[in-house]
């Protein structure tokens, strides 16, 4: 039951992009087409889950016992950066088709604040490892859902006659705002 609450709240109620404002850069940057947004979401799902597991282990078994939690920020970002590189290398060897699909998105993920954000949230909310994994997967799915919806809308938006000053980023932001408004309807679900 607890897991279901975590899943629903991470995907709908406090959606990582639309309610928590994490990962806005890729949300606006690569949401021009549905196909690229699917690839990006897959890469985020992959990295976010692994990163959350590794950073949780580091926090619990290294930083806390030695009383050096002030090194959290530095150690987490280094771990995530090297993890992304490692995932890239391993994926290239083990599963070339998956690498083909996710490859170009992986380097971008290091600077995706959603990954570091979810790792920090998992630790600060005091989740155990299983809850952390569920939370990470659900957050990534929420990211994917928001990306897909947004990409679908933007593909249609390209064909619309938008006022000159609003073209490009402004209309995209306003659209995201309306999407966020729709997601607010889920408040009260949990």
């Amino acid at each position, binding site marked *: 039951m607890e897991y279901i609450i975590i899943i629903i709240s991470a995907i709908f109620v406090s959606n990582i992009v639309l309610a*928590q404002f994490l990962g806005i850069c890729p949300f606006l940057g690569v949401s021009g087409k549905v196909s690229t947004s699917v690839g990006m979401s897959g890469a985020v799902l992959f990295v976010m889950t692994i990163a959350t597991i590794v950073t949780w282990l580091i926090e619990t078994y290294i930083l806390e016992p030695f009383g050096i939690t002030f090194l959290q920020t530095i150690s987490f970002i280094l771990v995530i950066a090297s993890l992304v590189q490692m995932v890239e290398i391993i994926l290239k060897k083990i599963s070339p088709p998956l690498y083909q699909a996710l490859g170009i998105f992986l380097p971008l993920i290091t600077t995706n604040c959603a990954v570091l954000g979810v790792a920090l949230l998992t630790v600060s909310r005091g989740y155990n490892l299983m809850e952390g994994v569920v939370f990470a997967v659900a957050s990534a799915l929420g990211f994917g859902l928001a990306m897909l919806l947004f990409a679908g809308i933007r593909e249609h938006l390209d064909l619309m006659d938008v006022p000159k000053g609003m073209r490009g980023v402004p209309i995209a932001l306003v659209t995201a705002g309306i999407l*966020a408004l729709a997601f607010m309807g889920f408040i009260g679900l949990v």
Partner: protein
Amino acid sequence: MDQWKNFSKGFIKDNPVFVLLLGLCPTLAVTSSAINGLGMGLATTFVLVCSNMVVSLIKNLIPDKVRIPSFIVIIASFVTIVELIMEGFAPTLFEALGIFIPLIVVNCIVLGRAEGFASKQSFISSLIDGLGMGLGFAFALTLLGAVREALGNGSIFGYKFIEGDAILVFILSPGGFIVLGYLIALLNRIKKTT
């Protein structure tokens, strides 16, 4: 003259938020009030100035291959300093900004300036560039925060000028997207006429 250009470009011409569209996550997340926006802006300015200075000083000592990780370590150290200082001296602001203080590390502006500017330029230019960009970021955040606070709460910097309820949605998440969208559109319009 050149230094003045380095300093002033961050405000309008190359404003990190309105023009370059960098660092949007903290921009949208913390600007539910003007004071939060200002606090976040100044914290980022501090990190930006310090990391720019250090990077420009040691740019010749860092091997090219490991430069990005080294930059990240430098930035993360200063972010940790800001975190500790804020927790000690401004606990309410620290609470309000929450997770977005450690997330300054992954703010694209900071790494972008370190890689794109400080790693090639002199110490003084990098310092001024960091200051200009940081203050431009703070300016954008404060403006966005002020508009959202005025519409959503009827107050600016906590000073209430409308009694009773205002349009609450502007403080909530959708308002952030919508206000930023219209501010950028407005800026586009201003830039075209001048």
